[in-house]
């Protein structure tokens, strides 16, 4: 469940938290472009990854970010291993000292690092943006309110779900369920007594919420009014401008081959 920690919003009063979600989205977009379309090797990935750290420190969410990354590291390792084996397969298995070996190793490493960089970037966004602000940002970016609400409600219920999964697991363990027992198939089957109550209670909850929303006239009128609007402040403009400027500069340097691919 620790993986999810990177998705919960933690209420704090830092510059990162005060930034308009749209300004933070600009930042997320910049890093995404740089790490997927512009660079393809390990070194720039590491640089991009490191650039996320100061923002996490400023937003005082570094510890949570690290625990997300610990969860993501497993997946990153998979990505690395499958890539690496795939490439070795194509060139025929070569000795570790040959240059071909390095040629297979480095791009695989870059792939894994790219994944971690993206996780870190998105994680920072969600850690410092309240779901309500995010929904409001989506609405002001002309996304239909229903979609924005669906998304934020899903986010809102991740902690609830994680806590509930723990309770269900505890209840079943108290009745003698041992998750680690048996062969591979048995182990998968061991999770049924945990998944079923979780899914059933999620449906129950969804129904309750839907009833509660309808009884408060959700969807009764086409035009919603909002209690508050997000306003793009000077700091938001500055932050976005700096992100775009740096990204543009990096792309230019890359195109004129001053930077490695």
């Amino acid at each position, binding site marked *: 469940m620790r993986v999810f920690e990177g998705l919960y919003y933690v209420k704090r009063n830092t510059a990162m938290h005060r930034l308009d979600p749209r300004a933070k989205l600009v930042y997320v977009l910049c890093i995404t472009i740089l790490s997927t379309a512009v660079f393809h090797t390990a070194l720039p990935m590491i640089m991009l990854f490191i650039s996320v750290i100061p923002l996490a420190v400023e937003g005082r969410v570094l510890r949570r970010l690290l625990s997300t990354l610990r969860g993501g590291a497993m997946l990153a390792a998979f990505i690395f291993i499958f890539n690496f084996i795939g490439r070795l397969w194509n060139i025929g298995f070569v000795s570790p000292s040959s240059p071909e070996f390095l040629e297979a190793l480095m791009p695989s490493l870059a792939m894994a690092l790219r994944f971690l960089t993206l996780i870190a970037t998105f994680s920072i966004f969600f850690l410092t943006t309240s779901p309500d602000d995010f929904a409001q940002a989506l609405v002001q970016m002309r996304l239909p309110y229903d979609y924005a609400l669906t998304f934020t409600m899903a986010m809102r219920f991740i902690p609830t779900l994680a806590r509930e999964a723990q309770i269900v697991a505890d*209840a079943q363990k*108290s009745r003698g369920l041992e998750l680690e027992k048996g062969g591979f198939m048995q182990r998968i089957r061991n999770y049924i007594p945990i998944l079923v*109550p979780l899914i059933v209670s999620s449906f129950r909850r969804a129904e309750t919420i839907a009833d509660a929303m309808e009884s408060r006239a959700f969807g009764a009128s086409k035009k919603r009014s909002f209690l508050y609007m997000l306003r793009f402040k000077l700091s938001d403009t500055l932050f976005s401008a700096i992100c775009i400027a740096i990204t543009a500069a990096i792309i230019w340097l890359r195109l004129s081959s001053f930077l490695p691919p």
Partner: protein
Amino acid sequence: MIEVQDLWFRYPESDYVLKGISLEVPRQSYVAILGENGAGKTTLVKHFNGLLKPTRGKVLVCGLDTREHSVASLARRVGLVFQNPDHQLFANTVYEEVAFALKNFGFPEEEVKRRVEAILAELELDRYRDRSPFLLSMGERKRVALASVLCYEPDVLVLDEPTTGQDHKQKEKLAELLQRLVDKGKTVVVVTHDVEFVADHIPISIILSRGQIRGQGKTLELLSNEDLLAETFLFPPQLTAILWKLSKLGLHPAPSVEEVVEAMLQARRQSP
């Protein structure tokens, strides 16, 4: 049977939820753990079968340190019935649901069948045997959850808030059932904030508030301690409340039903 020695516990990233709890639940006793919402009752009893391990201090179950034994092996001795049955019901039929623990603990097929039938009959659930547990009412679902633990006859039975959502008749039936278990030599621990139920049925209580034990001993003595109840956010049982009211009116009835009734009659005669 269960021994808790200076238990401190906190969840990751939280403050201490249990602060230096020491208590003993002797064999064959019938004990209530009372406390307001969020007092730490559930957290405490999750230590009784090793689901949670002490941050500091020790919990011994039948002399076994919970830190050194698996939940499965401790759960065989200490049956824990959770508050919300919906957190555990998963099987297609009530029968399967109740058989779950028995199968996990490796009971032979014949024995499983015998025990499930017996417990379903005892809890008046036999007519639902082949129904889906999800289609039952809340009170019935709670009974299925209870049956699914009772069936393997653990030495200690711990029930977390068994009376919530139950009507008066169901509560009385539950009380009878628990008393039968105690008479059979089982140890029963009831976690609750239902003061009335405890006053009526459970001889010994432990009062928990904000992660600390604030009183333990005879239920009726604890529940007539006005200061203790006020400090621990509990309401006195109605009878006690009546006694207090009467004594504030200058009447000092001794705590027997006849005398209370006498005092009330007297009060009524005095008022115009």
